């Protein structure tokens, strides 16, 4: 591998790893102060457990062999990777595997039992994430084969984690006091910090997915940035219209919505498309919040409205905006003369991930809940996760 490409891929791997603490703070700022360590811990713990699982088996199940549904054991225990797909690729993909289950923690804030959570993400990573990553990114995977595109994980990551979040919430129920007590964010600057780190790291996430330091990577970086920017504007505009205020949390949320939506598209679209995609995402994800209210679903920090809806949106919009003039390895969407073909493939890919991940995630959540328990008892929830799960306090005078 070319030294420039290696340099960029290693840099990107580092950037993606940094996103997980970023996500921890993005979410952590939004919870009540008694649950901040619980939230941070759930996120950084994914850096521990998932990485080891990935080395032992996860990567091999995702990228070993060329079957349509799942990989094999060829690369288990980091075997043969250096001479095969390469350690840089392994590292880069590992960081994706880490952050994906961590995304779920926003939906389940303030009420997960730590041991149950640990078991859930460990199992989920092997049974759900590895196969889906295989489908989407391995040359033999059925989604890849079909011709659907997913540059950096709209389906494999955001739809996947988003629907899993919905499934887990369905199993554990709402926070105590949800809908009756106000639960405002305890430290919004932390959320802004997390947003900054996420935005920064997302350049590695998306532009690194070019797997080379070339024009596609540069295009992906620009698209990522513009979509985040436009997502922020879209959210702020509609928020201002609806509530009279443009909020800081809205700016952060809109940026993340834009980033999610551009993820599948990043290396396949160009010119003003990322701005249109981001703007749409900012508006649609904001509107999706209302839906949540109606479903009386306690998706506490809006993983569904942002990651599931944003991921679906990006995956489908790619069917409109993809442009082979930007990336010859891609395809043309409806707006660029490609007809409905790609749009259809994108929809099928999205549906496939939705169904598979939704059902399996629900099953795993039920199984963990019945055995270890996935939710803390009522007193522990009242005291807060920091004290009940970790015997710690976040802040001292």
């Amino acid at each position, binding site marked *: 591998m070319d030294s420039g490409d290696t340099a960029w891929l290693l840099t990107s791997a580092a950037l993606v790893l940094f996103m997980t603490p970023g996500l921890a703070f993005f979410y952590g700022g939004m919870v009540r102060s008694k649950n901040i360590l619980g939230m941070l811990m759930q996120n950084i713990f994914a850096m521990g457990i998932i990485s080891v699982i990935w080395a032992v088996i996860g990567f091999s199940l995702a990228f070993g062999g060329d079957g349509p549904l799942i990989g094999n054991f060829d690369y288990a225990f980091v075997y043969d990777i250096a001479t095969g797909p390469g350690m840089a690729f392994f590292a880069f993909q590992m960081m994706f595997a880490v952050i994906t289950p961590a995304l779920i923690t926003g939906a389940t804030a303030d009420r997960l039992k730590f041991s149950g959570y640990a078991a859930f993400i460990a199992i989920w990573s092997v049974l759900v994430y590895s196969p889906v990553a295989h489908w989407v990114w391995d040359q033999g995977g059925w989604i890849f084969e079909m011709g659907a595109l997913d540059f950096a994980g709209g389906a494999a990551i955001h739809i996947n984690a988003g629907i899993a979040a919905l499934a887990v919430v369905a199993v554990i129920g709402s926070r105590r006091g949800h809908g009756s*007590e106000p639960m405002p964010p305890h430290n919004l600057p932390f959320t802004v910090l997390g947003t900054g780190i996420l935005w920064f790291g997302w350049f590695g996430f998306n532009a690194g997915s070019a797997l080379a330091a070339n024009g596609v990577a540069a295009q992906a970086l620009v698209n990522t940035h513009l979509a985040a920017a436009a997502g922020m504007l879209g959210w702020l505009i509609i928020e201002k219209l609806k509530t009279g205020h443009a909020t800081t949390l809205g700016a952060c949320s809109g940026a993340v919505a834009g980033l999610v939506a551009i993820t599948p598209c990043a290396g396949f679209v160009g010119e003003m498309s990322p701005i249109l995609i981001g703007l749409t995402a900012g508006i649609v994800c904001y509107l999706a919040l209302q839906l949540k209210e109606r479903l009386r679903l306690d998706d506490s920090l809006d993983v569904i409205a942002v990651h599931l809806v944003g991921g679906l949106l990006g995956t489908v919009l790619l069917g409109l905006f993809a442009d082979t003039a930007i990336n010859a390895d891609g395809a043309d969407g409806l707006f660029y003369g490609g007809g409905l073909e790609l749009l259809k493939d994108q929809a099928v890919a999205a549906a496939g991930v939705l169904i598979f991940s939704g059902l399996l995630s629900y099953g795993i959540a039920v199984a963990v809940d019945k055995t270890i328990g996935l939710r803390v008892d009522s007193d522990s929830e009242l005291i807060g996760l920091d004290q009940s799960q970790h*015997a*710690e*306090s976040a802040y001292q005078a």
Partner: protein
Amino acid sequence: MKLITAVIKPFKLDEVKDALKAAGIAGMTVGEVRGFGRQGGHTETYRGAEYQIDFVPKVVLEAVVDDSQADLVVDTIAKSAATGKIGDGKIWVTDVERIIRIRTGEEGTDAV
């Protein structure tokens, strides 16, 4: 006039406030405090070292009310703050000699 001071569990504050409002109490002042009592504290662990934390977070609520309302207020707080579990807190009453509203200079009943 009487000053009613209540030390309660933090998550009960909204309920108590609403109950007082419903009982016609127009004003109160609250602060974050830490309490020591029968409830006991908890242990925290930092790198293998265990700390006994004796104080638990509480909210203190103060309301100056007319003598005639004092019992009602005490009862209202007692009812709305109770969970029946240890650590629910205390209410105490002291005598206030004078009260004044800063904005208008009104005193006594007019001031609360």
